[in-house]
């Protein structure tokens, strides 16, 4: 490959003393520091960078920037790298993505031969029959043609990314002359400014401009760097603008994180992204060697790369004229300047892997290896779109302009109009001053309105009126399509002919056309394509472009890596204050929802037996705990629980169940009244968050007049259940100021007292295990001391910890159901056996109308205790209960364990009502296909249904 590197250029960004080695499709190549991947390859004479998606046409440099549809390359393990902006780095392995077996000899090019049959949406019209061929052959062939690079999913950088919050008064999107001036104007007016630029350097089009433009750039850069109020991010993109100026920035120039998501709450957003140059539609407009003027000028001026030898320049504007000068200065022979403004036009381009000739409308054919086009601009209005603004087409200027922007968004630079460098800077500066004023006024009003924030410094700044001289709208010819057809969407291989065909088939709105042809659906998301597509549609329907509308630009402005969006996810596993102790003492960890818990300490059965015969302690901290205070707590409880609460006396606890609006049991737990206006509610472990949100929701939206303060205290209180016949004896040794005797502290009571010298513990006497038991809620900082004291003092009583599995055995023996296991998303209150609890005559309870109806029904399944007739057979949980030898489902086993106390298998099951009578023999279908008989029991409790053991 020969070198196309030019002698030193005045504005070049390359460092000729630093050579960088990398590989291109396996071959070693060199570039220079400051090169992008594309510029380095172009300097080495590379013409063809990729093959197109559908027809596998040769593709080369088109825009040489982020939006270049032909420069998506595989770099190491990263797919779809934008070679037009990605800086070259030592050792990069760069390769083409969409070829097999090689870029030169790509088999997919066969598609080109049959291209005429692959018109828009062709795949909808064939492969319908025979079906097995679609299922097994056609589909996998189609999938082989998926464009894009390869994901190396065996390597991971997940978690290597970082995030940051920022609160700039003014955020400027775009670091060209207008954006830099806006940043300076705002900073000098006292605002903090974040200036974001997509390219590696500030300056926008000044970077590849003439001497005067570079001088202006130097001045601006010096001022920006000297301004302490401006933070600059280059290689960074403002990817989204969300409600209330919540702005996402993808920072690419962070020294450590590969990419960083900066989330900014912005006072004023200044949108100054410049303009995106638009390709012209004509036959051969994708041949390598056909490029936009911006690409040619950047190649020459930034990277000192000669883009070709013999050039035709198609120009409709000053940028094209400047390209002519740049090309001539670089020693490119400009053989023809086709000036649209004089009525001349290009008809087509001819060539395969490189341009060979250009055919003009006047019939002449010119040999050339470079065709530079400068035919107009697309305003990147995405961020404005996201703020609800629909841009309006101006046919005189041949581009879209924003209109009616909200106060907190301003525009400057090319998106707002045309101007000389001085005019752009002046407009930018005034925009910055205005943005600062609006932002500082906003900040002042927010501080004044928020009682607890810092008081505002002095009076609010006077509101400035917008006295900016608007930028001109320079007249520009409307150039969208030449007399021939060509590509509209390069990434998707969609041509103007495809669009016209689609419109003729009825896909004649821009949204339908997009969906049918996939135009604008590629990685550039329409930045290059949308306006051309709309123009073709307008042409085919005989309408004005202004009346066609465009598709809606949605976030992100430029694609953003999943790793950066994810960052390091803040979803820590929750651990009780005792979890370290459990793990140090041999506990097997069980991941239960958000929590990790001790499943057992080696022998769950022994642990359960120890509770039945002596005393055990279990850490039940994940139990949701909500502190409720205020005079209206009882009203809230009446609303959310199916049973009554007004009458609960201080010092008592009560079991409560909740149902959703459809009458389905949603949560349950015990709630105690600590004092007149102070209650402690418990919920299921998994339901803790949902119940808290539900309470707040009702208080804030349903009954804002109620005085209730809700505080979730699940982690703040460590909960220890002391269970077993010796539990009272043990606790009496550690509790000094509460009488634990049965008369003074009866079943379902609550007391507050000191446990193992820890004051302010809440103790309630309840039982999930069926034994005498006390639940102690200890301030978590002291939990370990209490836990260890219980074990130490209980040594002679055989006190030992037990885990979740032992508790599951114990509760099943006792017949307590678990919401979400023994009930499900279909189980209404009657199924759970809440009959006595539900008070249908209450005035208002969530789900009450459904409950009233549910209790009229006789077809709801019933939860019953079941014992297999063969005590050694243990049905699987979820085993179905069926009608004899048929497949008719009559219920299912919801819980199943071997009971050490009874020496047999025991279950809870939901069964059809006709099977619910005690003594009914049912058929359980085992996973291995056996059908085994089991008998419905009289009570849920497999032992001690009267509760004698827990009421001692």
């Amino acid at each position, binding site marked *: 490959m020969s070198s196309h590197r030019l002698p030193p250029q005045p504005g070049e960004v390359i460092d000729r003393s630093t050579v960088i080695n990398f590989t291109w499709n396996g071959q070693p190549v060199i570039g220079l520091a400051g090169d992008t991947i594309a510029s380095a390859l172009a300097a080495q004479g590379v013409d063809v960078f990729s093959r197109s998606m559908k027809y596998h046409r040769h593709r080369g440099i088109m825009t040489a920037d982020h939006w270049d549809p032909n420069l998506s390359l595989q770099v190491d393990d*990263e*797919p*779809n790298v934008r070679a037009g902006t990605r800086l070259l780095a030592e050792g990069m392995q760069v390769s083409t993505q969409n070829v097999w077996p090689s870029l030169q000899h790509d088999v997919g090019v066969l598609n080109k031969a*049959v291209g*005429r*049959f692959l018109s828009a949406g062709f795949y*909808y*019209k064939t*492969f*319908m029959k025979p079906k097995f061929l*679609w*299922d097994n052959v056609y589909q996998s062939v189609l*999938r082989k043609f*998926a*464009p894009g690079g390869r*994901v190396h999913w*065996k*390597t*991971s950088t*997940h978690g290597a990314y970082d995030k940051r919050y920022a609160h700039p008064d003014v955020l400027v999107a775009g670091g060209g002359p207008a954006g830099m001036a806006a940043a300076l104007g705002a900073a000098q007016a006292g605002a903090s400014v974040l200036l974001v630029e997509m390219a590696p350097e500030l300056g926008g089009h000044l970077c590849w401009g003439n001497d005067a433009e570079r001088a202006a750039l130097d001045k601006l850069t010096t001022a920006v760097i000297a301004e302490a109020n401006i933070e600059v991010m280059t290689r960074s993109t403002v990817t989204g603008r969300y409600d209330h100026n*919540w702005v*996402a920035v993808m920072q690419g120039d962070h020294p450590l994180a590969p990419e960083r*998501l900066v989330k900014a709450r912005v006072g004023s957003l200044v949108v100054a992204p410049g303009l995106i140059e638009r390709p012209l539609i004509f036959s051969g407009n994708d041949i390598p060697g056909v490029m936009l003027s911006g690409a040619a000028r950047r190649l020459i001026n930034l990277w000192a790369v000669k883009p070709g030898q013999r050039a035709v320049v198609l120009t409709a504007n000053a940028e094209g004229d400047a390209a002519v000068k740049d090309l001539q200065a670089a020693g490119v022979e400009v053989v023809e300047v086709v000036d649209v403004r004089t009525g001349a036009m290009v008809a087509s381009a001819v060539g395969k892997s490189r341009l060979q000739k250009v055919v003009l409308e006047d019939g002449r054919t010119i040999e050339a290896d470079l065709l530079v086009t400068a035919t107009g601009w697309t305003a990147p209005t995405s961020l404005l779109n996201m703020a609800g603004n629909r841009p309006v087409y101006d046919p005189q200027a041949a581009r879209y302009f924003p209109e009616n922007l909200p106060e907190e968004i301003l525009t400057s630079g090319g998106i707002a109009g045309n101007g000389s460098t001085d005019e752009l800077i002046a407009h930018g500066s005034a925009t910055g001053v205005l943005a600062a004023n609006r932002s500082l006024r906003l900040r002042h009003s927010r501080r004044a309105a928020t009682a607890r924030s810092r008081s505002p410094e002095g009076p609010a700044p006077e509101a400035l009126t917008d006295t900016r001289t608007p930028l001109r709208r320079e007249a520009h010819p409307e150039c969208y399509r030449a007399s021939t057809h060509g590509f509209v969407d390069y990434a998707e291989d969609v041509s103007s002919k495809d669009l016209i*065909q689609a419109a003729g*088939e*009825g896909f004649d*709105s821009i*949204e*339908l056309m997009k*969906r*049918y042809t*996939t135009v604008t659906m590629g990685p550039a*998301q329409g930045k290059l394509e949308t306006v051309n597509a709309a123009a073709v549609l307008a042409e085919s329907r005989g309408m004005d472009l202004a009346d066609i509308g465009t598709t809606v630009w949605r*976030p992100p402005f430029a*694609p*953003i890596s*999943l*790793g950066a969006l*994810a*960052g390091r*996810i803040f979803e820590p*596993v929750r651990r009780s204050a005792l979890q370290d102790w459990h793990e140090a003492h041999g506990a097997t960890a*069980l*991941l239960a929802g958000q929590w990790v818990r001790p499943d057992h300490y080696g022998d769950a059965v022994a642990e359960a037996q120890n509770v039945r015969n002596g005393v055990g302690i279990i850490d039940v901290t994940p139990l949701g705990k909500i502190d409720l205070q205020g005079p209206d707590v009882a009203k809230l409880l009446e609303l959310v629980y199916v049973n009554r609460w007004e009458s609960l006396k201080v010092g008592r606890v009560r079991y409560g169940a909740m149902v959703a609006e*459809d*009458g*389905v049991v949603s949560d349950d737990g015990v709630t105690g009244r600590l004092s007149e206006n102070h209650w402690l509610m418990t919920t299921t472990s998994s339901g803790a968050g949902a119940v808290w949100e539900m309470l707040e929701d009702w208080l804030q939206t349903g009954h804002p007049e109620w005085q209730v303060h809700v505080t979730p205290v699940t982690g703040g209180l460590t909960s220890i259940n002391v269970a077993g016949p010796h539990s009272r004896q043990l606790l009496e040794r550690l509790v000094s100021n509460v009488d634990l005797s049965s008369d003074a502290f009866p079943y379902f009571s609550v007391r507050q007292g000191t446990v193992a010298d820890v004051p302010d513990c809440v103790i309630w006497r309840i039982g999930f295990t069926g034994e005498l038991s006390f639940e102690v809620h200890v301030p978590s900082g002291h939990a370990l001391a209490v836990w260890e004291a219980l074990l130490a003092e209980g040594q002679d009583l055989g006190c030992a910890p037990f885990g979740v599995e032992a508790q599951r055995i114990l509760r099943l023996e006792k017949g307590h159901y678990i919401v*979400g*296991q023994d009930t*499900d*998303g*279909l189980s209404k209150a009657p199924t759970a056996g809440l009959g006595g609890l539900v008070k249908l005559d209450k005035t208002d309870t969530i789900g009450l*109308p459904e409950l009233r*109806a*549910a209790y009229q029904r006789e077809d709801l399944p019933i939860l019953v205790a079941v014992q297999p007739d063969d005590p050694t057979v243990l049905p699987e*949980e*979820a*085993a179905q209960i069926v009608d004899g030898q048929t*497949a008719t*489902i009559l219920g299912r086993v919801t819980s199943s364990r071997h009971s050490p106390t009874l020496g047999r298998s025991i279950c809870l099951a939901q069964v059809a009502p006709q099977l619910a009578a005690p003594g009914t023999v049912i058929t359980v279908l085992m996973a291995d296909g056996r059908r085994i008989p089991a008998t419905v029991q009289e009570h849920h409790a497999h032992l001690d249904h009267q509760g004698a053991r827990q009421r001692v």
Partner: protein
Amino acid sequence: MPQHAYKYSAAKLLRHGLTRGTWPRMWRQPEFKDTYDVVIIGGGLHGLATAYYLATEHGITNVAVLDKGYLGGGGSGRNTAIVRSNYLTPEGVAFYDRSLHLYNTMADDLNLNVMFSRRGHLTLAHTDSALRTMHWRAEVNKLQGIDSSVIDPSDVKKEAPSLDVSPNTRYPILGALFHPPGGTVRHDAVVWGYARAADHHGVHLHQQTEVLDILCEGGTGPEGKGPGGKVTGVRTSRGDISAPIVVNCTAGWASLISNMAGVPLPITTHPLQAAVTEPTKVFLPTVVVSGSLHVYVSQTDRGELVFGASVDPVGTYRVNGTLEFTEELAGHVLELMPGISKMRLMRQWSGLCDMTPDYSPVMGFTPVEGYLVDVGWGTYGFKAGPVSGETMARTIATGKTDEMIAPFNLSRFTEGDLVGEKGAAAVGH
């Protein structure tokens, strides 16, 4: 397909390629008549399917489908195109299995390739309790003849090698419910297929036609609307239409449209967000769903990963999308597939879901004679589209509520008979 219809085939593709001839319109631009037998509001999947089955199964062809925008511009074109039938209740299974069957034969039935991709559907379990629910669903499905089973992490890895099934992740994959018949369909093609076929059978499709009011008489409310009355037609942005039957198939706008007939619906509208990545070579062969991580993902034939989540908690008609959605989505997806962190999110969007209190649709007759609804589909209207159209058409044609949709009647909200498919449907996709 009637005789005059233009049939697609490989041969036609060949002929058009050789002659470079133009293709005919997929559907006509019909004249706007002032009288139809049936007016269907909403030119999405449900409305078009209803029209198609009215015309093909029942010979009712004097039908207009009205849409204020373009065909399939609502939920039909915004969903993540997943279909399955491994539901929890026998009723749910029967309903969705019929739908899956219709999808299976749709390409041939409608003579348009809807690209049904029967690629298998994995619902991951990250907790003991989720695994228990999977076992339950599998047992129910098996007894009903649905291909569905619980597989362990090593088999999950075989189906979707990019998933991290090691035990040390934040949300370890303990197993999955595997449903081989599940998959994806090209959602837009389904809309176009029904639209084209309905058009060929005489149905009029009127786009850019907004319904401003539903005209009634004899009802207890103002202007003769409300219970006890009957429908006489609709007022549109292009003029009045008289029709004895008006069907509301407007998803996110269902409650607003229904108010026009004086029939308030217990429906709130919530956005459901989705996103898509840049294309890469295909590496994810199945649909992957994680209920506890609120994410589902599949890879299109074009190589993009399509992600969806659960509905936004706050009701609104706005479809702007949030940054937080993409952050949480990316975090959860990477917990499942840490190796794809360098893939880039290309576009996010949202659609409007019409949510009912019991996560089940509202279908059939209403207290206003001649006014029917097929709404409340929430997050799973796409899967149910074909069978909904079939049953609604049957209900309209016979004047009798089809047995399959009887549980979804509107009166259940006042008579305390909510359906509660929540256990199955709210799990998502």
